[in-house]
């Protein structure tokens, strides 16, 4: 009698602590939150372009398609290897608050979110991964206005592994 009770107790205890640990782990409490303080988790984990933009900028409708020069791939709009596709963003806009680069067909579209100070002068060049033939979108927010442009890029070998 006594031993069965004891046994039941340890079993219960084990089950409870296991379930609480699972809860803690899934809720992300074990992540180093302080390090991630500046990283827009919801924007980068969004699975559509609209969601990512809403989370990042708080608005998704773009005002203008001019004033922004965007190049993807080399030669332009083509990439042999999707794992590193060169991009270049050029603009004459003043007071740029944020530049974002998104790949429409990627599992997680938001690739880069750049916050330049007034000392930074464009062009900005970098490399991104593109999973498959897709629209690549560049967005600039300057003086509270959104400027957006996109290029369709053909990819030979997908690069999101």
């Amino acid at each position, binding site marked *: 009698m006594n031993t069965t009770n004891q046994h039941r107790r340890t079993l219960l205890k084990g089950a409870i602590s296991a379930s609480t640990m699972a809860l803690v782990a899934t809720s992300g409490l074990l992540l180093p939150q302080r390090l991630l303080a500046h990283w827009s988790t919801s924007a980068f984990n969004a699975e559509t372009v609209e969601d990512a933009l809403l989370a990042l900028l708080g608005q998704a409708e773009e005002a203008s398609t001019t004033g922004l020069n965007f190049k993807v791939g080399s030669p332009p709009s083509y990439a042999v290897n999707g794992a590193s596709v060169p991009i270049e963003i050029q603009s004459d806009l003043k007071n740029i608050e944020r530049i974002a680069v998104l790949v429409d067909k990627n599992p997680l579209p938001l690739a880069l979110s750049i916050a330049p100070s007034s*000392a930074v*002068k464009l062009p900005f060049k970098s490399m991104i991964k593109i999973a498959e033939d897709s629209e690549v979108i560049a967005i600039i927010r300057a003086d509270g206005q959104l400027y957006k442009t996109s290029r369709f890029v053909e990819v030979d070998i997908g690069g999101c592994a």
Partner: protein
Amino acid sequence: MGLVRKDRIRAKLKSGDTTVRILLSHPMHTGRGQNDAGDLIPAQFIQDFRCWRNKEEVLTIECGTATAANPYFSFQLLGGERGDKIAIRWVDNLGAKGTAETTVK
């Protein structure tokens, strides 16, 4: 002692402005790639990148998994002179960090 990191950074004065080129050494695993045994490689990618000129912060970049492996960034800074110190620092999602510094040539 962590991995040997070779982050490269070059800063050059060109017609009055400073051109900065940065090549970080990082695998940028998205969490969807597989190793030779077919197991998923856990996600590890740079999330936060910062750049300073003479202790003044000039640029912040947040990276997602769609930033290419060994991230490359190139941009210009208005003005500047020879001897300016350009410093960078990055942090990835697992908390690994890297720094590099150079002087403008």
